[in-house]
């Protein structure tokens, strides 16, 4: 758990380091500056977390069935 926390901390440092760069090609800067890209990230993360939990639950149920034998 500690390692995950450290990873998350490092991640947030990286994110702030990379934020904001002047660009010529049209990018979704407006969306990012208004902060709404975070909504998308949150949704994608929720979906993937859900799928991961689902996979883990299948794994656990299988383990139970395998033990019965």
């Amino acid at each position, binding site marked *: 758990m500690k390692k995950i926390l450290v990873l998350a901390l490092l*991640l947030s440092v990286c994110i702030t380091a990379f934020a904001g760069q002047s660009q010529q090609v049209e990018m979704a800067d407006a969306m990012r500056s208004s902060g709404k890209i975070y909504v998308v990230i949150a949704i994608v993360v929720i979906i993937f*977390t859900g799928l991961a939990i689902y996979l883990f639950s299948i794994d656990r149920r299988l383990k139970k069935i*395998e033990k019965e034998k």
Partner: protein
Amino acid sequence: MKFIYQTWWKVLAVVIILYTLIAGFLFGVPTLPILHETIRNTYFHVPMWIAMFTVFTISVIYSIAYLNTGKEEYDLIAVECVNTGTFFYVLGLITGMLWAKYTWGEFWSNDPKQNSAAIAFLLYCAYAVLRNSIDEEQKRAKISAIYNIFAFPIMIVLIMILPRMTDSLHPGNGGNPAFGKLDMDNRMRVVLYPAFIAWALIAVWIASLRYRIRLIEYKRNEIS
């Protein structure tokens, strides 16, 4: 085989993918015409293919192992790896088509890469058909193992080699720069390579789950 019953690598894969989901949207990317923000698709489209290659490779290894030893379990691993690989194949094709729509102009522009990917997909559909058409268990395992060993290099040639020899819109083909020096930098690599590993692990995980289910079914059939 104990590996597939362990938990640590599954947690690792999930954590890395969560990282790529966040970093993939927030980290800086090269600014390129036409591609714009869709360059971030690299983090999600390409790993589907890496995942597919991983499970297909494992399946070939176990097909060979089956032919060597005749162990039924190896055949079950091979078939479930192909099933999982086909799933990621479909994801790769669909995400590629959607990406193509907004960068090449059309979902399907009969690009060599797309066409040969479609043909290679049919190869693996034929594998499923072949398997289901044989009732006798040992015969089915043997024939499908041999088919699988031949299908794999053909798939590699179709997807990786042939498109490179002609003009293709897909990066890395026909004089088109790959995601190499020109359009990729280290900011992307710190997300892309972990994504490759993590999605490959997820594919192995799903394949292992399917194998364990199939193993239970197999044992049950054996008893009755």
